[in-house]
C-alpha cells in the first residue's frame, strides 16, 4: 500500500513537472517577444549617459556583438540555449551575471518573505480561529472589519504609514535600506540586518493576515456547525478543548495550503514593500530592471518568480495529496 502511494505521488509529480515545463517554455517565449517589442532600445539603455561618446559605428559593433541585428527567432534560440546551459546573461545595471544578482538578492528577499509569511500565517490563523469561536461577538466583528479593511489597503501605503510612524516620528527603526549607510560590508552585524528587516516584514504581515484569517474563520464556522461538534458540545466539551480535538486538524490544512498558494501575492507584496523601504531584494531589482531597461535581468526575474510561484503551488497540492486521503480517493475514481 505504502509503495503504491509513493508511486502515485511520483506520477503526480511527473505530470505537474511536465505541465510546468510547457508553461515555462511558453513564458520564456512570450516574455522574450514582449521585451523584444519594447520601444526601449537595449543599446541605448546600455550606453546610457555616455551617449555623446559613442558613435554609430560603435553602436553597430555592440549590436553585432550582442546579436541584436539577427532575426527574432535566432535571438530567441540563442537566448534559450544559453538559458538551458544555465547562463542567464549579464545584467546591464549591475554589470554582473544575472544568476549572481538574483542569487544574492534572493537571500535578502527570502529572509523578508519568510518572516512575513510565517508571521502572517500564524497570526492570521489565530485571528481566524478566535473570530470563528466567538462568532457574532464584538471581537469577531473587530477581526472581520480589520480583515475587510486590510484587504483593500494598498501595500505601499501601509509601508509609508509604518515609515512615518515608526521611523520618522518614533525613530525606532532606520528609514530604509538593507544595511546601515556608510558601514563596510564586513562590519554589518546580524542585529543591523534584523533592524532593517522588521518594518518591511511587519508591513507585509499586516497586509497578508486578512486572507488566511477570513478563510480559516469560514472553515471553522462550517466545522462548528457540524453534527460531530454538536455531539461533542452535548458531551460537555467546550472552549479550547473542543477546538483542539475537533477543529484544529480540520482547519489547519486549508490554512497551510492557502499560505503556500499565496506565494504569488507574497512576491507582489514584497516588490512594493522593498520599493518603499529601499530594501535590496528581488522586488527592488525587478523594478530597477523595468525602469532602466535591463532586459536580461528582467527576463531572469520573470523566470525565477515563475519558479517561486510554482514551488508554492506544488507544495500546496502535494500537502493536500499526501495528508488528505480524500483527494487521493477522488482521483482513483
Amino acid at each position: 500500500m505504502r509503495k503504491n502511494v509513493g508511486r502515485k505521488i511520483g506520477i503526480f509529480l511527473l505530470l505537474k513537472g511536465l505541465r510546468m515545463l510547457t508553461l515555462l517554455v511558453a513564458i520564456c517565449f512570450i516574455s522574450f517577444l514582449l521585451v523584444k517589442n519594447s520601444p526601449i532600445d537595449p543599446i541605448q539603455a546600455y550606453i546610457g549617459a555616455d551617449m555623446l561618446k559613442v558613435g554609430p559605428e560603435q553602436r553597430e559593433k555592440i549590436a553585432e556583438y550582442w546579436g541584436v541585428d539577427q532575426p527574432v527567432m535566432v535571438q530567441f534560440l540563442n537566448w534559450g540555449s544559453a538559458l538551458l546551459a544555465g547562463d542567464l546573461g549579464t545584467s546591464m545595471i549591475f554589470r554582473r551575471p544575472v544568476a549572481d544578482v538574483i542569487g544574492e538578492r534572493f537571500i535578502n528577499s527570502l529572509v523578508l518573505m519568510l518572516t512575513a509569511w510565517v508571521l502572517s500565517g500564524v497570526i492570521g490563523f489565530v485571528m481566524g480561529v478566535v473570530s470563528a469561536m466567538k462568532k457574532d461577538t464584538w471581537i469577531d466583528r473587530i477581526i472581520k472589519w480589520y480583515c475587510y479593511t486590510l484587504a483593500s489597503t494598498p501595500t505601499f501605503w501601509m509601508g509609508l504609514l509604518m515609515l512615518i510612524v515608526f521611523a520618522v516620528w518614533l525613530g525606532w527603526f532606520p528609514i530604509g535600506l538593507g544595511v546601515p549607510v556608510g558601514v563596510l560590508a564586513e562590519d554589518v552585524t546580524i542585529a543591523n540586518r534584523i533592524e532593517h528587516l522588521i518594518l518591511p516584514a511587519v508591513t507585509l504581515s499586516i497586509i497578508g493576515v486578512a486572507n488566511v484569517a477570513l478563510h480559516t474563520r469560514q472553515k471553522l464556522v462550517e466545522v462548528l456547525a457540524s453534527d460531530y461538534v454538536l455531539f461533542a458540545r452535548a458531551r460537555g466539551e467546550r472552549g479550547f478543548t473542543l477546538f483542539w480535538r475537533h477543529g484544529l486538524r480540520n482547519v489547519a490544512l486549508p490554512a497551510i495550503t492557502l499560505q503556500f498558494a499565496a506565494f504569488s501575492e507574497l512576491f507582489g507584496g514584497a516588490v512594493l514593500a522593498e520599493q518603499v523601504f529601499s530594501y535590496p531584494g528581488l522586488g527592488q531589482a525587478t523594478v530597477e530592471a523595468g525602469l532602466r531597461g535591463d532586459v536580461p535581468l528582467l527576463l531572469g526575474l520573470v523566470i525565477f518568480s515563475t519558479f517561486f510561484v510554482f514551488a508554492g503551488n506544488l507544495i500546496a497540492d502535494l500537502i493536500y495529496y499526501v495528508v488528505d486521503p480524500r483527494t487521493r480517493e477522488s482521483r482513483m475514481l
Partner: protein
Amino acid sequence: MIPSLKVRNKEESRFFLNRRQRKFITSILSAILLVTVVVVGVLLDEERIATNLITRNLAPSLDHPFGTDWLGRDMFARTIMGLSLSVGVGLIGAIGSTSIALILGMAAATMGKVADRLISWLIDLFLSVPHLVTLILIAFTFGGGFKGIVIGLMLTHWPSLARVIRAEVMQIRSAEYVQISRQMGKSKWWIAVHHILPHLTPQILIGFMLMFPHVILHESAVTFIGLGLSPHEPAIGIILSESMKYLSAGMWWLAFFPGLCLLLIVQAFDRIGENFRLLMDPTKSND
C-alpha cells in the same frame, strides 16, 4: 423563548430596516460617493493644482484640508483628481478584463475539449507569474505610460473570472431546459442568447465589481513604482511616490490622506460588489 427572541429582533431593527434594505442603502450611498468623487475630479480645473510658492508645505488646515506640497499645490484637489483618474483607468481595465474573461470562459465551455484544454492552460499560464511582475513586464513592453498600464491591467485580471464563467456555462449547458431547447431544434446561437447569457449577467456584473478594487490597487501600485502613468498626471501612485522624498522631513499629510482616500474608494467598490452578490443571490440574501 419566543418573546425574548422578538425583543432582540426589535432591538436590531431600530431603524425599521431589515438587513436587505440596509445593504441596499449602503450600496447606494457608496455609489453616490464614487460618482461624486469622479464628477468633482473631472470638473475641478487645473488651476486648483497650479504651483503657488507662497503656500508651500502647509500642514492640513481649513483652507487646505489635506495640506499643500512643496510646490504649494492643494493636496485635496490633487487627491480628488487622482482618484477620478484611478477610477477611470480602473474602469477601462476592468471592462477589458471582464470581456476577455467572458469570451474565453464561454469559449472554454462551449467549443469542445481542445479549446477547453487550451484555455485552462492559458489561465494557468497567467496565474503562474506574479501579477505585479506581469504588469511590470507589460508596462515595460509598452514603454510605460497610459497605454501600457491599461493593457497590462486588462491582460492580468481575467483568469479567475474566466474560470467562474466557464463553470457556470458548463452547468447551464447541461441543464434540462437547455437540452430540451436543443432537442426542439433551437440553434446554438439562440440558446446562447436566450438561455446562457441571461444567467451569466449577474455573475459578470458581480465579477466586474469585485475585480474593480484589484484593478485600481494594481494601477496605483505600478504607478507608484514608476512604470505606470506619467509623472505629470495627478495619479495617486505618483502622489505617494513623490511624498516618499519628503517623509523624513515630517510631511506626513502628503502620504496619509491620498492613501486613505484610495482605501475608501476601493472599499466602496468592494462593498457594492459584495452587497450586489448578496442581494442577487436569493439563498443568501436573507441571512
